[in-house]
């Protein structure tokens, strides 16, 4: 286990800050912003623990974190007076692999002009693109499962 408490706290705080910033961008009122911070902090805490504490890969850790946030939001949304969708998304936005997406597209741009190492560039582009796809898929599915399960339970 490579995880230290200081690193876990750092990641959690950064997740909370990013979620609050995006919450304001989504025009969430000041009174609801603490819930955004909780959502982002929870997502990053779980993901960091799974990644560095349990040694999972990014996709699995993101799925576990999104599932946890989705379940927590289902429990807390009545108290937070905020739409479930917004609270889910601001919490998980810090986990969106934006840098992988940028690197994948830049590698594809580079392919058009690369004369040497084209196959290496192609593999890099495909690797990053696949990681983005699977990670976003993991986050979306993790968020959707609690909602879909709750809907089944309510409709019975």
């Amino acid at each position, binding site marked *: 286990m490579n995880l230290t408490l200081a690193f876990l706290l*750092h*990641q959690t*705080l*950064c*997740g909370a*800050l*990013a*979620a*609050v*910033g*995006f*919450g*304001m*961008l*989504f*025009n*969430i*009122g000041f009174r*609801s912003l603490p819930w955004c911070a909780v959502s982002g902090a929870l997502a*990053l805490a779980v993901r960091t623990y799974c990644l560095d504490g349990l040694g999972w890969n990014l996709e699995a850790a993101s799925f576990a974190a999104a599932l946890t946030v989705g379940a927590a939001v289902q429990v807390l949304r009545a108290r937070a*007076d*905020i*739409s479930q*969708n*917004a609270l*889910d*998304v*601001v919490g*998980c*936005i*810090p986990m*969106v692999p*934006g*840098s992988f*997406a*940028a*690197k994948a*597209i*830049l590698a594809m*741009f580079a392919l058009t002009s690369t004369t040497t190492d084209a196959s290496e560039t192609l593999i890099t582009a495909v690797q990053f693109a696949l990681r983005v796809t699977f990670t*976003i*898929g993991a*986050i*979306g*599915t993790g*968020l*959707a499962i609690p*909602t*879909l399960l709750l809907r089944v339970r309510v409709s019975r």
Partner: protein
Amino acid sequence: MDAIDSLIPEDTGSTPALEPIAMVALDAGRMLMEAGASANSIDAIVSKFARGLGADRVDLRIGYASMAITIGIGANGITRMREVGHLGVNQRLDQELWHLAEKVSRSELTTSQTRAELTRLATKTPRHSAWVMAVAVGLACAAFGRLLKVDWLGTGPVFFAAAIGQLIRRELITRHVNVFICAAVVAFSGSLLGGLGAHWAGSAKIDMAMIAAILLLVPGVPSVNALNDILEGHPTLGSARAVTVAVILIFAAAGLWLGKVLLSHWGIET
């Protein structure tokens, strides 16, 4: 009277007017969609409005750029369509629309009162000021930067570059510039400022600082809505949202690429 005519009940003429109910319900759905809601939420709110105002039957079709509704009361029914504008994210408007929907579903408001309330919400729902949003976005991107392992020297430039990028984005949106062009311009300016700032500050993570400074462009709500819509039985709308997300990412990457080219032209290695 033939066999089919005999199946249709007679119009008694005593039912409420269908047209205003259909248009008010459609407008509520349109506003919710433009505020960043998923298809199921839109379906639910339109049904609440229409039934609360007296409709017996409600069927809704949600497209990326338009919505169509069929409502019926007794023997009468009409179908109407409405164009949907730019899909943004406005959580406070979303919240207010749901509060209004609760009132309407309890039949506390007439159709004209509901219309007046919708107009009030569209014009009077408050937004954070441009400067507050710029600072918030700067902080968010700086935090993103730390998550991407940008060193402390590069974090300050990421904050300023993202804040300026947000101000530019707001200005372009006010001028109704195309959303994809807007993404490319913001990505170019944000990455250039982030890269230059990180270089001057002596950061060893210039490339990551450039990427962190444009993460305000991450289309988080559309991405999650796209997947939700597909999972919840609206694959057409979900696919349209996914394509839009992909094109925004391509334009943002093009802006980032231009920024990188310019920096390497000036001798700064990224």
